[in-house]
């Protein structure tokens, strides 16, 4: 970790409104976060805590109600910032009629890669994901695990500096989950900054260097995983215990 902030969030709030601009739900209520270069940063929280909203604000897909988001020191909708990131959505959003190879090439095209680089990166990533034999099959017929691998390859095709993973292990079987964790570790070892959201606390403890815990739109805890494990009486369940304590405390406060 070099300490340079790749993502910087200050006092970020987001309230969804209806057609008449009446508030529907306050998804975020003023959060501060900082993801440093080289971090594997876990954004954890129960359902409806604001994880996906935070990710979409970072990606510029939503506009904040108040507060600021900076991506590589730039506004999230700035093209110079977005050209440096890769994104894996929560659901593998793929065009079902495209083959695995066409899908990766499509995202390479969106990232502006030239034809030769596109071909090389596509072949390399499909091989890395173990999809070479299925490269010419339409992804509409793939299992969830295979579709996730194709989406991973698409997110990595442009060598992003920041990889944003929204629930990367959601719905995967244990073997596929293990593969994803192994991949995240390898990417982190290569120096990629990774921002990941998940419910799977065991998995996050294995791969993350730092975490922040969101509950009801607020950051209710966080720190380095090493510190959390060091302070725990049960290192195997350290993150789970820490998460339960942080989220439970918020729920009790609300009650």
């Amino acid at each position: 970790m070099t300490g340079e902030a790749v993502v910087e969030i200050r006092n970020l709030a987001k309230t969804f409104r209806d057609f008449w601009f009446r508030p529907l739900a306050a998804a975020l209520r003023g959060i501060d976060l900082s993801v440093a270069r080289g971090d594997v940063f876990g954004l954890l929280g129960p359902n409806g805590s604001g994880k996906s909203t935070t990710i979409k604000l970072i990606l510029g897909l939503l506009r904040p109600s108040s507060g600021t988001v900076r991506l590589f020191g730039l506004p999230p909708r700035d093209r110079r910032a977005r050209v440096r990131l890769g994104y894996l959505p929560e659901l593998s959003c793929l065009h079902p009629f495209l083959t695995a190879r066409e899908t990766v090439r499509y995202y390479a095209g969106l990232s502006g890669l030239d034809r030769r680089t596109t071909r090389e990166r596509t072949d390399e990533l499909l091989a890395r994901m173990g999809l070479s034999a299925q490269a010419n099959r339409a992804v509409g017929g793939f299992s969830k695990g295979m579709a996730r691998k194709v989406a991973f390859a698409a997110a990595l095709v442009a060598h992003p500096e920041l990889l944003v993973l929204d629930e990367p292990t959601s719905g995967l079987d244990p073997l596929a989950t293990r593969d994803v964790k192994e991949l995240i570790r390898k990417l982190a070892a290569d120096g990629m900054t990774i921002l990941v959201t998940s419910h799977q606390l065991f998995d996050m403890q294995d791969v993350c260097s730092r975490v922040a815990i969101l509950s009801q739109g607020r950051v209710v805890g966080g720190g380095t995983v090493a510190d959390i494990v060091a302070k725990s009486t049960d290192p195997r369940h350290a993150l789970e215990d820490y998460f339960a304590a942080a989220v439970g405390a918020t729920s009790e406060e609300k009650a």
Partner: protein
Amino acid sequence: MRRFLALARTAALESLAEPLTAVLFLSGFAVTHLAPAFHYHQFGESGRLARECGFSVLLVFGLVFATGAAIRTIGREIESGTAAAALALAVPRTLFLAARLAGVLATLVLFAAAIACATALAHGSSVLAAFARSEHGTSAQAWGPGLAAGVGLTLAALMLAAAANRFLNARFCRTACLALAAAQPLALVLAALCGRDLPPSFAGFFAGLWSLLPAFAALTVGCAVFVVFAGALATRLGASSVTAAVALAVVSAFVYPLRAVLPDINRFWLVDRLANGGVLGWPEVLPVLAAGLLLIAFWLAVGAILLNRRELP
């Protein structure tokens, strides 16, 4: 440019892969090729039924395709999250909208070009049949080559797509649409070759195609306006609302103040000027094309503003 091409190519492939597109292509070409067989109803001019049948196919099927493809390529893309996955990268929203609609327009132009060839063949066959009937009392021999080439190659295109699907794993609908479109100019050439000894010369097919092109260009631009109109609305509205809006536009464009901005398909229907030996030249069509391009630019700008202001939760 690479981003534009990637988006446009995917949108074109997507529109070609839709079963509805294959159905529209197949039924459109089949109806056009079979029109000369109804030679007892010519509306006072030999070949008029066949000619106007081809234009009507482009009008009706083009509007159905325009609405459906625009909804799928923009609205469904936003709903499914594939738009968010693309827009999270360095893809400006205006570029996204323009490129996706360009892909749909490419498919529309392919359909229009193929229908123009099929119409030229049907029109030529119909004129030839009328001539043969007046000379020999029978028309079957005269419209035979045109019908055989048109229907035969259309069926051959379907079989080719089925074989490609069976043996090469190619997507059936996509291959069928491309093969059906390619079959139409081939049918025109084949009919001209087979019927070169028939009076009047089948070379007239190509002259017929050339005379029909300005009217086809105008109608294609009219359908293109509807692609962009429906696409612009699909950035914010659901499928049923867009369909209703397109239907409303078709009807309400008759109302004078609304004609300025709503796509009025009547502006682009210049086929009547070809009736009774009329000629429609490019100079007459150019103002219509220019008006169509202005409307396309206007609705593209509206769509870009709507999409840029939209949040993608």
